């Protein structure tokens, strides 16, 4: 008989389940302003401490502090706040539209609005973002027409994607927003390819790609990082760690053992871990990575530490797997309130203006929804069925021509 202990099979479990009290005690929330800001062109070897820090700019008194403070103008801060509030207003209205049977599916970005908004405003028009479905604030920050967005969500006759794609899986090339798809992680490598193409052609268009923390377990993530590192691609690879992948907590993607930012160390590239609910910190980290990418210093991996306040989608009920009040205990707060409070603290905003802006945005969203409803909600209106056969190839082959004739332009 051996006196070895028996082998133990370990299956990770989140800190709290429904009915238990929310527990973020293990989430160390360091004070803002403490993390060093090395030169953006520094060697990755000298940056190996950063993935284990948490870059934060907004402190408990709503002030911007420390070396990562990007020194944004009040105009820029208000622009960001507006984009985030618009995202929230849009999400609320369209989530309700789903409950009213006007569309089949919706996904909210609640709690994560700072990431897309800050990065969209920081990146340039010619850059390309390879999004996930939870960075809609990228489009809202760039003024993508709300009515086009609602038309897409309703898959109606004016849908810019011609009724072919699930609601919110947008494509908006002119807004630096690459085509989304429903399978996870597959576009992470496209961002790397885009960046390599820019470098090869010597055109000034860097790439920014997103993935969720759950998807870091996919091979796509690691292959993209390998290619990005090997070819020193001018790409910013972002992990939005919102703690939950449907019902799977971040521990199932390996976060009990390390941080997602620290994956960078194995690839020899910088990894930043950033408070994703801090608009200023997101901007600052992006600015650092952009400077590095444009200077031919290659990719940066950024983990945005955040929390998915809403369910995964309209098909999900998070109270089935996490405490109902978990979001309220999230230690990094709400990104919208934090940016608002900062603006108030520096004397550039007040409650009246805030309330007025919310009302204005709500009206804007309502009006876009009404306009789209006039075209038609899901099933009430759609593009001509002949368009179903277009765009499969550059030119349809005989099969598609025959099948289009077979259906005879008749809608089902």
């Amino acid at each position, binding site marked *: 008989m051996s006196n070895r202990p028996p082998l133990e099979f370990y299956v990770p479990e989140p800190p709290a389940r429904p009915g238990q009290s929310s527990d973020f005690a293990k989430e160390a929330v360091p004070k803002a302003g403490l993390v060093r800001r090395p030169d953006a062109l520094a060697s990755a070897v000298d940056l190996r401490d950063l993935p284990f820090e948490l870059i934060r700019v907004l402190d408990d008194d709503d002030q911007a502090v420390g070396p990562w403070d990007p020194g944004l103008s009040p105009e820029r801060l208000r622009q960001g706040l507006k984009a985030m509030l618009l995202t929230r207003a849009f999400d609320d209205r369209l989530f309700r539209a789903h409950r009213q049977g006007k569309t089949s599916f919706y996904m909210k970005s609640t709690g994560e609005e700072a990431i897309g908004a800050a990065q969209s405003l920081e990146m340039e028009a010619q850059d390309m973002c390879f999004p996930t479905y939870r960075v809609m604030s990228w489009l809202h920050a760039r003024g993508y027409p709300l009515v086009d967005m609602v038309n897409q969500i309703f898959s109606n006759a004016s849908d810019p*994607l011609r009724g072919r794609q699930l609601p919110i899986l947008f*494509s908006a090339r002119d807004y630096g927003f690459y085509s989304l798809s429903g399978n996870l992680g597959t576009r992470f490598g496209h961002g790397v*390819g885009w960046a390599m193409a820019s470098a090869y052609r010597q055109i000034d268009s860097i790439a920014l790609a997103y993935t969720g923390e759950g998807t870091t377990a996919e091979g*796509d993530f690691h292959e993209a990082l390998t*290619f990005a590192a090997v070819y020193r691609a001018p790409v910013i690879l972002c992990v939005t760690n919102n703690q939950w992948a449907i019902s799977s907590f971040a521990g199932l993607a390996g976060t009990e053992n390390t941080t997602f930012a620290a994956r960078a160390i194995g690839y020899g590239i910088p990894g930043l871990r950033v408070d994703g609910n801090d608009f200023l910190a997101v901007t600052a980290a992006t600015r650092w990575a952009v400077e590095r990418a444009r200077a031919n210093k290659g990719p940066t991996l950024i983990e945005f530490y955040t929390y998915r306040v809403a369910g995964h989608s309209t098909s999900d009920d998070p109270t089935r797997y996490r405490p109902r009040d978990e979001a309220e205990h999230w230690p990094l707060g709400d990104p919208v309130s934090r940016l608002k409070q900062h603006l108030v603290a520096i004397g550039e905003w007040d409650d009246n203006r805030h309330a007025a802006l919310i009302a204005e945005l709500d009206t804007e969203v309502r009006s876009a929804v009404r306009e789209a409803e006039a075209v038609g909600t899901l099933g009430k209106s759609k593009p001509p069925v002949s368009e179903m056969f277009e765009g499969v190839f550059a030119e349809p082959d005989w099969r598609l021509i025959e099948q289009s004739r077979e259906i005879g332009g008749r809608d089902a």
Partner: protein
Amino acid sequence: MRELNMVKAINDALDVMLARDPDVLIFGEDVGYFGGVFRATEGLQARHGLKRCFDTPIAEGGIIATAIGMGAQGLRPVPEIQFADYILPAFDQLVSEASRLRYRSGGEFWAPITVRSPYGGGIFGGQTHSQSPEAIFAHVTGLKTVIPSTPYDAKGLLIAAIECDDPVIYLEPKRLYNGPFDGHHEREIATWAGHPAAQVPEGHYTVPLGKAAIVRPGEATTLLAYGTMVHVALAAVEEAGVDAEVIDLRSIVPLDIETILTSVNKTGRCVIVHEASRFGGFGGELTALIQERCFYGLETPIERVAGWDTPYPHAFEWDYFPGPARIAAALVRVMEIN
């Protein structure tokens, strides 16, 4: 005009396109300095530079993902997957991304990539260097699948594929690289020397995708084949003494349905040959199309000759391979029934 074998014809197509179009990039495992395990990219890096023809990490999914991202920006990447057997790690990228990008984005993005990959057996490559996955790709709408059978076609089809704005799977019959193998593995190996289709023009020319070739006109039965099996089929026709019309499909997507139907309507008989295993193979689709459109013109049931429904077995390679004897037997069978 020079006489080239198929590898050299492919190399020549790549060379022409690299010189002609700065948006063409070639990359894959071992393709750069070394020139590829089958030598298809030999000399291209030296001639066109490190940045035009380069080596990649061993990550087929990453190779194709990268190619799609480059293609979306406007390049025309020509990635190589070293063996078609290794294309499966990239399957998601090809099926979920390359094939649908244009459709799902409302035409905002597309992936004009050409994925070259050697396929097929007859080289004692065992299960992982011998497979023929063409039917898997033919089933995926949005992908084109091209399979040459001669040096002339290999060059012209490859140039057409690279210039095509859709994603193309370009499968190279590796057993034909050095000669028009007729399935008689026991005989001395034939080279392309003296073969009329080994006469390859210099410079740019195309063979259109979706246009089959009647490689042997005949009246008795139609015989459909592509890739390696074209030459095996031709040998079988001679040995069976049947006046078969042999059609080389050249691309299975797009498929030249007109040429197929015209021939079957004329002969009333059809034998379909492919090296991939039979069940669910592309022969099933061809059979269905022909019976849907030529049922009353058919004199006899359609015959399929294909690899058996086993993995590609090493020691039993020539038992698995649908050689001339099996094809000849099928030709005799379709002619016996009246």
